[in-house]
């Protein structure tokens, strides 16, 4: 009996290895920052992929269809000149699919309805494990806490100052409260990123705030910047006649 089970285990193990070798190599690359929006490369049409990925950094270099996987952006103030349906975003609500788990796994089906008494969240290992960045919130220099942005009871929503829930796909309505300059520039297309049609009334996919900025760690430690560092792509080819580029490091005007 034991011998059979061991053999079966070994057999199953080998089968698993072999099948995974035959499985298609899935290429995933990230659009703006790792952890925000990742895309699996696939062909939209034969020979026309949805994205082209960088072999060096794993970043998306090119979109075959800029509107792949997008939904219309909700109403945003002062974006009225954009025809309806021409502003789309990539939804992130699906990432919050873990939330039902919270209810059954930890809270017996009922998420606590009230605020913690002293607004200083207790360190709960499970939640910290889910979102390590929340442990020592690097946003606001100690002047804001979780429920300033997240809805008290509907934890898959954000919140505004009236207590009304905001969709997590429209973080600009929340972030724009404090970051008005950036909101104005973002709305006009000067700040942030849009892909799609260049005409001012054209269809564009807007990258929302949290697709580029990590709201739980905007300072990035001692760097004190709003955007993390990225790995750069490869330098240009050395032209004929140059062995290396060391001369670039020799400084100064002679």
């Amino acid at each position: 009996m034991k011998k059979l089970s061991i053999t079966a285990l070994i057999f199953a193990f080998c089968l698993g290895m072999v099948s995974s070798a035959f499985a298609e190599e899935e290429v995933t690359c990230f659009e703006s920052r790792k952890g925000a929006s990742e895309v699996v490369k696939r062909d939209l049409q034969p020979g026309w992929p949805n994205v082209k990925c960088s072999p060096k950094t794993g970043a998306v270099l090119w979109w075959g269809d800029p509107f792949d996987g997008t939904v219309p952006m909700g109403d945003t103030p002062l974006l009225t000149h954009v025809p309806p349906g021409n502003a789309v975003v990539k939804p992130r609500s699906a990432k919050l699919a873990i939330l039902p788990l919270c209810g059954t796994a930890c809270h017996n089906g009922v998420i606590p309805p009230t605020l913690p008494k002293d607004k200083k969240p207790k360190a709960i290992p499970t939640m910290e494990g889910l979102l390590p960045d929340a442990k020592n919130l690097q946003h606001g220099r100690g002047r804001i806490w979780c429920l300033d942005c997240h809805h008290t009871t509907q934890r898959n929503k954000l919140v505004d100052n009236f207590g009304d829930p905001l969709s997590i796909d429209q973080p600009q309505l929340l972030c724009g409260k404090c970051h008005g300059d950036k909101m104005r520039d973002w709305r006009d297309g000067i700040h942030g990123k849009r892909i799609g049609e260049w005409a001012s009334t054209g269809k564009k996919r807007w990258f929302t705030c949290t697709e580029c900025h990590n709201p739980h760690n905007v300072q990035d430690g001692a760097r004190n910047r709003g955007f993390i560092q990225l790995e750069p792509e490869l330098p240009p080819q050395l032209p004929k006649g140059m062995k290396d580029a060391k001369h670039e490091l020799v400084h100064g005007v002679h």
Partner: protein
Amino acid sequence: MSFAPDYIRYIIKGSTKFYVWMAFLAFLSSIALYGFYLQNTEGLIVTGLTSQIHEGLYFANLVFLVGVAAGAVTIVFPAYVYHHKAMHEVTVLGEMLAITAVIMVMLFVFAHMGRPDRLWHMLPFIGIYNMPGSMLAWDVLVLNGYLLLNLICGFYYLYTKYTGGEVNRKFFMPLVYTSIVWALSIHTVTAFLISTLPARPMWFHSMMPIRFIMTAFAAGPCLIILIFMIIRKNTRMWIQDEAINLLSVIITWCLGIALFLTLSEIVVELYARTEHANGLYYLMFGLHDLTRLVPWFWGSLIAMLVAFAMFLIPSVRTNYKLLPVACVLGFGGIWVEKGMGLVVPGFIPTPIGEVTEYYPTLIEIMMSIGLWAMGFFILTILLKGAIGILVGDVRFKSAAQATSNDVANSGGIAAHGPT
């Protein structure tokens, strides 16, 4: 008529020395033809050119050779404007050199272009000829015009000598005067080609045309003196001392002014040492430890200074044993200064500051040598024919007399000449 057959019959007969020389040149030319083949199949990647430094040995040679072509005016001008008798005897040799030099320029243009098979795009009516906007279009116009002028003037003169007739001055003199002025224009336009580019601060100054003219009028006569000495030694034609001495004086003046212009450039650029002077600094001292051209610059400067000193001293200038040395030094120095010293540093650094270096590949060097060999091949033929006519070996007399004369003198390159 019989001019062409007589001419051809004369130039294809020669001594062993002649045949060996021509065979050697033909061999070198065949290397150039192979180079053309490579460049038209593989592309310019067989040279050392890059997108950063995209004019190299070919462009340098073609700029220099335009100068040599213009330098022929140093013979024509004294001959026809100052009626210098000794020069008058050898004017047509200068025109032959001009023809050859312009043909060599065209050969180097073919070598330098990315798509020589598309050259027809520049023809008016069939293609698009961007006049008056493009300086290159002007250059094509003046070069072809100069070639035509010299062909007409040179061969008309030879033809009249061949038939023993008189030159029709009403037809001939306007063409000669035009060619004198035109010679200045070809090199000025070539200078404008590079001096009208604000993107290239090393070239973008008004001194460029005068510098080109001065170096051309120094290098051209250097070559002409050397050729005259070879002609004296190897043919029956005797070129007067006065001609050679006048050329030496012209070289002295022009080399002197050219050196003065170099000095002024160095002072102006390096006094304030702005970033615009980076090209010159690279040439003189190297940039960021990249010093490939530094020995070439100093070598050429020393060569030109020594040549100038030699030309300056009358006893050295008229000493025909030392004069060839001075000519070689002058010619070589100017070739380096106008070629590597001007063309390549113009691209270092690129307009946005990238510093790279350039070295010509073996194919590029062999191709340049081969094209020079082609030029000398053509020059030898043209000079031989011209000398043959000038000394009277080729004459339109009765057919029998002409043939017997040819046979008797077919040792065209024999060591004669009065001492």
